[in-house]
């Protein structure tokens, strides 16, 4: 696979391991530019799957793995459109990002999210597509969407339900609180804890171990234990689009975007 250096992410291949590095300031907010480059990446990823054994997704930004969807772009674009067009635009975005995330989720490669700092909303959902999450002790996980009158829209709840008990899923979704990496490890969300600044190194070491196993067997095992929750993912898009038409969403987005105080990421 040819190395790729985009505006929002980069990809390189080395020793049978692909590394997808997010690098869009302030904290890898996922908007149209990131989505377009992710689409390019998954095309290349599929081509590379015959050679590579593992994919690592990480961030090179100090702030964290990803703060989630680009709410400023969502708000600005939505305001420029009539209501019907807004929903169609959001639906199109969600369908595209679901296609990307589903391809990462079901890739025959073993996938590892190496996360640190803020891993919120859509960023958390991206991490959840991976087979393993390796977390820096300073990582925090959160689904803040209910604060905006929405549910997570990038497939997070179906994937979390696939992996964890319903109690912790309800806790995260219904309180909107963030949990630290130690707690996430205790509930089974995080596979391995890493020291501060060490998540990528631990992920590389894990990927090297994964590379020792037979490719076909590894892919078969993954298919067996990690089915895509297709129906729930489809339902999630419908619920999100329905909620998106509610006035509470526009006011919630406006509050976030126009906030000038120091803590828009706090409830």
């Amino acid at each position: 696979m040819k190395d790729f250096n985009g505006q929002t992410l980069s990809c390189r291949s080395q020793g049978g391991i692909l590394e997808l590095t997010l690098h869009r300031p302030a904290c890898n907010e996922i908007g149209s530019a990131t989505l377009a480059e992710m689409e390019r990446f998954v095309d290349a990823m599929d081509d590379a799957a015959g050679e590579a054994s593992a994919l690592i997704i990480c961030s090179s930004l100090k702030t964290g793995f990803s703060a989630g969807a680009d709410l400023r772009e969502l708000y600005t674009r939505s305001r420029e459109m009539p209501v019907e067009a807004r929903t169609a635009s959001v639906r199109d975005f969600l369908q595209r990002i679901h296609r990307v995330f589903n391809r990462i989720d079901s890739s025959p490669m073993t996938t590892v999210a190496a996360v640190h700092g803020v891993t919120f909303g859509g960023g958390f959902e991206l991490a959840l597509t991976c087979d393993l999450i390796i977390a820096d002790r300073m990582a925090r996980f959160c689904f803040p969407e209910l604060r905006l009158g929405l549910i997570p829209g990038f497939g997070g709840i179906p994937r979390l339900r696939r992996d964890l008990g319903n109690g912790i899923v309800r806790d995260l979704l219904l309180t909107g609180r963030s949990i630290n990496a130690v707690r996430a490890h205790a509930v089974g969300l995080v596979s391995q804890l890493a020291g501060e600044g060490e998540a990528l190194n631990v992920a590389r070491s894990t990927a090297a171990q994964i590379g020792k196993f037979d490719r076909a067997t590894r892919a078969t095992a993954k298919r067996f234990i990690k089915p895509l929750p297709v129906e729930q993912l489809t339902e999630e898009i419908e619920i999100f689009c329905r909620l998106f038409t509610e006035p509470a969403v526009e006011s919630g987005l406006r509050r976030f975007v126009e906030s000038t105080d120091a803590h828009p990421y706090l409830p």
Partner: protein
Amino acid sequence: MRTLEQVMDEILDLAANHFTVPRNELSYDDDFFKKLGIDSLQALDLLTRLEQRFGVELPDYELQGVTDFRALAERIKARI
């Protein structure tokens, strides 16, 4: 069992050390956003360090409206 004052002192020690602010410039009733010059992402970092230090979970909604070290210490003490 730590007293509120002990909790506050530990918070100030940790904040001064991590955000490289002289300890003697921090006091209990300071606005930590202003005094430490931090934004919400850095506040989450502080929250994580405090959770690790005190061995508690502090839901971030409990920080709603909390801006000074004293109120922060009260929230933490309630969970120790």
